């Protein structure tokens, strides 16, 4: 670091390398964590979302019994834990499939034939017992009740609120960006390599300094990622969006905090690499000084 021009060029290249590394780490998190359906599917299991949704639906239809007159037993099979689990996973895979371009249409079309059959049977039984004519009005009421039940169950099972995000336009925005994430990641990684080689070229007379500048890049990028991630975790920032609905709270906060944990882990790895880089620099620097003094 004895020449000013070398120093300044190295600083500029290091700043670019920091930005490039931030891009690399960010895109890696996005590709392998945020945009990965597996992240959400894992949460279904770890947060026991299916059971929470089932209990919520059960409670709802129990309360509705006095109002609508339809007993819980009509819905029981359609809102079992297994069915809820199926629907939750379906909504997740559909949303991520749509974002990743593997699915053409957003929105799930689950098979509610069993629910329809149960409700039809109940309505028919009720109509027969009370001598209701099965006219157009009857059919209309049945259709409305079935549609309302299907919509309600679908909404409850959409624990990550993909439908609302789609309505707000976010899903389509993400869909536009997703194809470029892979290319972006490759581009950033290539930029990292290129900038490293340029640093090597600039510091060719004192090659040990390359490790110093690489350590700086890794350390600064790691700190820039770690500080906000740690802050979000420590202040429990996402709890601000704590929701009344138990399963949504579990799903959303689980997902978001999972992302921050992944960011902290990535930053930790970068710090370790930075430390290794600094050690290499110190060793080589001392060896070089020893050789120079020895002469």
């Amino acid at each position, binding site marked *: *670091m*004895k*020449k*000013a021009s070398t*120093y*300044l060029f190295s*600083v500029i290249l290091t700043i670019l390398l920091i930005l490039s590394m931030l891009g690399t780490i960010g895109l890696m998190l996005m590709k392998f964590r945020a945009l990965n359906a597996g992240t959400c599917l894992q949460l279904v299991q770890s947060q026991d979302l299916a059971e929470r949704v089932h209990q919520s639906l059960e409670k709802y239809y129990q309360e509705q019994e006095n*109002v*609508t*007159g339809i007993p819980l037993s009509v819905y029981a099979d359609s809102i079992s834990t297994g069915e809820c689990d199926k629907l939750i996973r379906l909504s997740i895979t559909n949303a991520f499939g749509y974002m990743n371009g593997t699915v053409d249409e957003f929105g799930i079309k689950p098979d509610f034939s069993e629910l329809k059959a149960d409700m039809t049977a109940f309505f028919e039984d009720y109509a027969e017992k009370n001598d209701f004519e099965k006219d157009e009005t009857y059919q209309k*009421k049945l259709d409305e*009740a079935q549609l309302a039940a299907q919509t309600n169950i679908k909404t409850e099972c959409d624990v990550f609120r993909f439908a609302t995000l789609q309505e707000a336009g976010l899903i389509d925005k993400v869909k536009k960006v997703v194809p470029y994430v892979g290319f972006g990641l490759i581009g950033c990684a290539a930029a990292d390599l290129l900038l490293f080689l340029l640093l090597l070229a600039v510091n060719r007379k004192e090659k040990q300094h390359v490790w110093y500048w690489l350590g700086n890049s890794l350390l600064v990028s790691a700190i820039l990622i770690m500080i906000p991630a740690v802050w979000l975790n420590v202040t429990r920032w996402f709890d601000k969006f704590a929701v009344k609905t138990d399963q949504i709270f579990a799903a959303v906060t689980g997902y978001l905090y999972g992302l921050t944990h992944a960011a902290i882990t990535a930053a930790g790895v970068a710090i370790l690499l930075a430390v290794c880089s600094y050690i290499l620099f110190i060793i080589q620097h001392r060896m070089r000084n020893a050789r120079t003094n020895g002469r």
Partner: protein
Amino acid sequence: MTNSIEELHNNRRTQRGFAMKRCVKMLAAAVSAVMLFPVCAVPAHAEGSIEDVCDAIREIGYPEECVKTFMNEYETRPHDENGMYVGEDYWEYIDLAENIIIFRDLIDGKLAAFMGVSPEAVKTADPSAFVSLLPLLTNAAPAATTAPAAAVTDENGQTVSQTTVTTVSGSEAPVTTAVTNGGTHTKEQEAAFVNMTLEEKQAFISSLPEDQRAAYFAGLTPAERKSLLKQISKDAQADILKDFVEAGETFGMHVSIDKIGDGQIDFSVRDSDGTLIDSTSFGSKVDDTGWDMTLPVIGSAGTILLSIGGFGWTAYRANKRREEVLNGEN
């Protein structure tokens, strides 16, 4: 198959909520609608009733929506034919009404005092003593006839309310101002007063004969009071608002002034349970809907500049050290 419980809940909320919502929407008009009564109004009803309290609330200038809100609150509070509970205190209706009216006189007196008119004179002035010269000055002078309606008096013979109708005959369309305290301000007079700056208002009041100054204040219209309230000093505003707030406390409305800015007074109103009923301001309000990023922008720009400076200094030191080493070797 409708959700009847939801509907019932919504209906109740509709009744209470709308009344609450409107009650301070026009607090500007409410404060300025404070009437300069020569005497404290005494309930018109013989033995005092909730209606007397409502009348007193209207007297002091709260809009009708506030009265409705108060009536809603009244239904939820313990009460009997003689009185009601406000908070934990039991008030007879007559006493409660009188207590509210005291604040009105306080407010009126302060407004008049600010304009250099004796509050005592306003208390005893006859509003009809002032006769507006407008539009007689600006147009061909049509004949003006003033016909006070029958005054409503209470059992003590004191005037509670009085309506005066002024009609201007002639080629002009009738200019009618009906004010509830016997004022004789025509619409042109009112408009002229409202459009005056504070200095012009003070000059105008000073230009009136002594006996008509107090009479003018005794006959102020709501619009005139509103314009005056907006123009008086902040200290005077705060002082008057304090009384207004205290008046609200007497019948269970908790008003808090949030901010007194240029031409705007922000306030909040809460009911007896502390539920926020409204948060608004006197007059129309344009909200601040942008984040102020001054600090982050300046802070980050400063940090960037400092670090660039730091790099420059480090590079300079490196160069200097290199020269010293080279010179040392030479």
